[in-house]
């Protein structure tokens, strides 16, 4: 009985992986063929107003780097060695024409590298839309909110000027509904993984989530639904693994082999911050009222604590501890991209918080194209050993 389900699951994961790592962006190209004249707008991590882009009849496309799928030549010509890897592969993709299917790129403010990448893009692709989206660090709806709303309004104008449809009340409603729904399904995926991590290996959940970068929300939601149904149907046995939360990988994505390495070294990943776009804002965008204000204000009130967002109250790291507790994690693995200032500067404070909470933790660095995990395997293995050999003791 489970045989066909297992096969279907394998097939689905394979399809998701193909979508997730397709550096040709064929799904986007195909979408554009089906929607003549419509725009596709790329955005780099972490968050972008996907509902706004969709309401303009455009396809929001998550550009999260080329991983280990592209050879870097031109990217290295633009970046010296002490910069993280993400901008290199994005530039490489751009200069190799892989991103030609995108009519524009958004660079949400999360760090200096991304911010400067917006300028690099303007210099390299003078004819494409390239926009830096400044996110507020003031959280008063009348101060930061007003500014943010103006930013979003400007974005609508920029898109419309490039030929996008001006959003209508109906298109707003549809886009917001679809993205709220997608958010729910992504959350459901994570909830299931928290509860039964043996059912949802992170190396699978990750590609299923990542496929969402190149699909419209409805299609991705369908994929998620299928996946959830299948993993619930396929029998998988729990292992004697340590439950961990992986933190710090919010922008440059870890290579899939790294996730597999961690799992093989005896860890169940029950919480992570990979691919945050659909879960950055932890609440639904309301359907009532001015949609721009709705997006802005939901963001202001419910953006998740994050290295790119000023920590208003409390102590840095408290939220991580809470997340780990909620996930029933026995430890935290800090996995930051090499040379990522936001992640690496947050880390000591977060580690201190874990220390105060008595939560075991360790850290390592990676880059999206690392291919050698010997050291990480040793570290993670030792970490998992320590948890397993002495848990409860």
């Amino acid at each position, binding site marked *: 009985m489970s045989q066909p389900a297992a096969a279907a699951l394998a097939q689905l994961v394979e399809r998701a992986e193909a979508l997730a790592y397709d550096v040709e962006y064929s799904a986007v190209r195909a979408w554009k063929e089906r929607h003549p004249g419509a725009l596709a707008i790329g955005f780099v991590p972490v968050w972008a107003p996907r509902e706004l882009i969709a309401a303009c009849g455009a396809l929001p496309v998550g550009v999260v780097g080329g991983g280990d799928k592209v050879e870097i030549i031109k990217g290295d010509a633009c970046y010296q060695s002490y910069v993280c890897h993400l901008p290199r592969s994005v530039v490489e993709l751009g200069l190799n024409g892989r991103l030609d299917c995108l009519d524009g790129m958004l660079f949400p403010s999360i760090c200096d590298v991304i911010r400067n990448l917006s300028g690099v893009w303007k210099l390299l692709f003078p004819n494409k839309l390239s926009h830096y989206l400044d996110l507020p660090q003031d959280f008063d709806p009348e101060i930061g909110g007003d500014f943010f709303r103006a930013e979003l309004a400007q974005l609508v104008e920029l898109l419309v000027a490039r030929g996008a449809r001006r959003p209508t009340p109906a298109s707003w409603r549809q886009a917001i509904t679809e993205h709220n729904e997608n958010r729910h399904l992504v959350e459901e995926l994570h909830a299931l993984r928290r509860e039964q991590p043996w059912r949802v290996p992170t190396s699978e959940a990750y590609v299923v989530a990542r496929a969402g970068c190149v699909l419209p929300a409805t299609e991705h939601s369908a994929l998620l639904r299928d996946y959830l149904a299948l993993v619930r149907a396929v029998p998988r046995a729990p292992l004697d693994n340590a439950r961990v939360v992986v933190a710090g990988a919010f922008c440059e994505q870890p290579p899939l082999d790294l996730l597999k390495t961690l799992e093989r070294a005896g860890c169940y990943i029950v919480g992570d911050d990979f691919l945050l776009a659909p879960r950055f804002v932890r609440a639904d965008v309301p359907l009532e009222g001015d949609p721009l204000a709705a997006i802005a204000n939901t963001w202001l009130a419910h953006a998740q604590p994050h290295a790119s967002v000023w920590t208003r109250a409390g102590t840095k790291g408290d939220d991580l501890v809470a997340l780990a507790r909620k996930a029933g994690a026995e430890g935290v693995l800090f996995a930051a991209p*090499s040379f990522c200032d936001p992640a690496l500067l947050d880390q000591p404070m977060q580690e201190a918080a874990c220390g105060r909470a008595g939560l*075991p933790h360790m850290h390592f*660095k990676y880059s999206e194209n*690392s291919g050698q995990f010997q*050291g990480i395997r*040793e*570290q993670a293995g*030792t970490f998992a050993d320590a948890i397993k*050999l002495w848990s409860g*003791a």
Partner: protein
Amino acid sequence: MEPLLTGGIDVGSSAVKLVLMRTDGAGREELLGRRVERLRRRDPLEVATRCWHDELLPEAGVRPDEVAYVATTGEGDRIEFRTGHFYGMTAHARGALFLRPGARAVVDIGGLHARAFTIDERAKVLVQAMTSQCASGSGQFLENIARFLGVTLEEIGALSRRSEKPEKCSSICAVLAETDVINMVSRGIKVEDILHGIHDSMAGRYVRLLLTAGARGEVLVTGGLAADTGLVAAMRDDAQRQGSTLEIASHPDSVLAGAIGAALWGAHRQRVLAKRGVVLRADPA
């Protein structure tokens, strides 16, 4: 309890370490045989297999089938006749306690990586810190320099300790440092001063690593570089300069810590499994 013979094989990037141990499960732990073989770029698995079968066991007068559990660590998980594998720091922690029961932190300095970690009295690894994907200041680096200077690794320590005017070594690259050393030689700097300078810069890194891992009290240096008295002395000096109270020590068998720890964990595991009725056999074939 019945005495048990177990083996530990630690396959590293520059050397293979093997031990044979006897434990009685009640606290008596004996090191029966030891073997360290520098790889010199030979195939590690081949060297390990040969050392195990042709050297260590015959010397100890033990037949392969008398060994209850062959535990590997490091890159030894590819050894075919292993019974089980333990991760590096898990093994080093256990080995460190065997060698120095008071140790509460370990810094394992091997060919490519250095790892520092704190442990408790049961050898549980608490906090770990590791050098990154750049081989600057690694053992391999020191080896290169030594070769170039025409000094054997065994001589390095004494030479370095003889130096009074350590020459500051600024280079951060393991490969390019060779050039710096050429420069120093050209400038007529004495070999001992060069070595001392290199030791100082390496020591700084390792002490920093230890402190990052929250080390306090007794520290055992394990891994190949533990034998480098010059480096250990430099680490002590550095710790002192930092005003830290770390008691940094080494042990003549420090290089074997991983193998010892693996063998001890193997014995532990074997007993646990035996209690559960699981029979594992180290198959010599």
